[in-house]
């Protein structure tokens, strides 16, 4: 089909598909168990640079566990995570969350893990913590280097604040904000870290139609504007179909499908899993 003959949506998909690069994250045979409960069994998939990858599946499928493995909160008993940084591949059996953060992986949480006693601005500033170089003594004196560093990071954070349109609440303590705005602030904190890989755990949960549209817009903008690779967990099928490039489907800790949104939607195994058909 010529570009002139495609619909607007198809055109957009086409343009985005062209930007997707090579594989930069590879999950290989990961198994995770808690005592007797098997959260993940032999899951393998890959993620390409600049793409939006969705992980879906019925409740209890192990989606959050998968995300937790990706950023080092859980350590799988078996399997490897391989991450490409620049040209080199690094292999992990047992990464800790600190290492993950240092490697440019940032995430949001299902139940909002913001620091309730601090303002929006301060919360987003904590996202920059790995880039702050000054010692505490320099900060206590607030001279030269410390002051400059603080203002520099403030500048970057303000860019994120502008991007997410939350200027009016930057000094508000996070605990006082409504749920939808808190989710946006959490996204801001993740973005402030300038991640190469962004993990979003149910970013649209609990939101109404308008809030979802806003959040979708932000997620897509992040992907377009910053080129960040995004892996997200989401229950809303409409959202998944619209914004993701490829989808992984988990059920009872196993991968049951992997492909484009359309391909996955018509996959019988996936339909069965969601309808609860025993297999």
């Amino acid at each position, binding site marked *: 089909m010529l570009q002139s003959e495609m619909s607007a949506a198809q055109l957009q998909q086409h343009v985005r598909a062209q930007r997707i690069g090579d594989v930069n994250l590879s999950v290989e045979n990961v198994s995770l168990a808690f005592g007797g409960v098997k959260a993940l069994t032999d899951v393998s998939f890959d993620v390409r640079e600049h793409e939006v990858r969705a992980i879906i599946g019925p409740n209890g499928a192990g989606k959050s566990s998968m995300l937790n493995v990706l950023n080092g909160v859980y350590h799988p008993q078996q399997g490897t995570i391989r991450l490409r940084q620049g040209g080199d591949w690094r292999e992990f059996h047992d990464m800790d*969350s600190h290492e993950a953060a240092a490697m440019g992986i940032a995430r949001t949480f299902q139940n909002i893990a913001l620091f309730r*006693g601090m303002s929006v601005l*301060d919360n987003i500033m*904590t996202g920059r*913590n790995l880039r702050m170089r000054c010692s505490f003594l320099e*900060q*206590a004196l607030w001279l030269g280097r410390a002051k400059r560093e603080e203002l520099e990071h403030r500048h970057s954070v303000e860019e994120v604040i502008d991007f997410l349109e939350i200027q009016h609440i930057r000094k508000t303590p996070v605990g006082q904000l409504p749920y939808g705005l808190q989710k946006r602030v959490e996204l801001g904190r993740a973005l402030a870290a300038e991640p190469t890989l962004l993990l979003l755990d149910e970013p649209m949960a609990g939101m109404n139609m308008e809030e979802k549209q806003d959040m979708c817009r932000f997620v897509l903008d992040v992907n377009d504007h910053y080129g960040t690779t995004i892996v997200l967990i989401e229950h809303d099928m409409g959202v998944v179909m619209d914004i993701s490039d490829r989808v992984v489907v988990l059920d009872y800790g196993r991968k049951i499908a992997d492909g484009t949104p359309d391909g996955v939607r018509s996959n019988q195994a996936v339909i069965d899993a969601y309808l609860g058909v025993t297999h």
Partner: protein
Amino acid sequence: MLYREAGQFRTTYAEDQQIFPIRQDRVAVVVLLVAAFVVVPLVGNQYWLSAILTPFLIYSLAALGLNILTGYAGQLSLGTAAFMAVGAFMSFNFVLRAPWLGIIPSFILAGLCAAAVGIVFGLPSLRIKGFYLAVATLACQFFVVWALQRFGWFSNYSPSGVIAAQEVVILGYAFNTPASKYMLTLIIVTLMALAAKNLMRSETGRAFMAVRDMDVAASVIGIPMMKTKLLAFAISSFYCGVAGALHAFTYLGQVEPEAYSLELSFRILFMIIIGGVGSILGSFLGAGFIIVFPIFLNLLFGGVSHLIGDEISHAVLSNVETMIFGGLIVFFLIVEPHGLARLWQVAKEKLRLWPFPH
């Protein structure tokens, strides 16, 4: 009308990050500093200087130290007095055994000793939280006091355990009048309070508050748990140590280990609860309140006993004082858990609207 911000625009981030962004606040602070540094020493009488203002500054500094640890970093500590004791006794020992160091370096070294003790007893915070951690600080409190009593070296083998702080001489000038002692204390406390404020509005402060609010999330985004918690203990203990050194040198003159008891730790905890947990200003307000309140109560009871023509015993007075403090703690926790500092903020908010109701 007085407190309007209209016309005050902050056009750079630097302006927005200032400690006092509002012009009226800046003016008020300048007035306060002038009063504290210039007016008080000239006008103040001996009693006020040596029995009220100097201890107020010292306890504010200790409360500030505790606030950094408990208010900002969320690590409960019942061992504040022990850190003060380390500061007091170690500064005495440095001045005694290495007089060539000078008073200020001795104070700093004493503070560092307190910081070291703080780090040791803060190590458990890496594994335990909340009031379990209070046990570690209790162990510290009892152990330190016992060690200072038992190991004669600390008190230079004085039979009663009492040490007499040496005269404070800096660069040939002797600080031996109430006014000069007050000034020295004021300078040290002001500088340290400024440093604390700078710290708390930088990344260190944010890391502390992140650990306080949700330490699991903090570690996931890359904030180092061990370093942050131990730094909180170290800085807090340093502040309490310097407060202890001042306590011995510019306030009491003579101290013994028993003075730094659990009761003192509780008193300082009360200061930050009433003054405002997690607030630099609150440390000062709380200390002021706890120092001034007994005096006020004394006067009140004096008046009452005049009225009824009967002497009210000292025991009754101190028991009523204890009761009221206990009651006030509960009151503040129910009504305004953020203490006097928040009440002050609320008052300022109302002042911005005055004379309009909303």
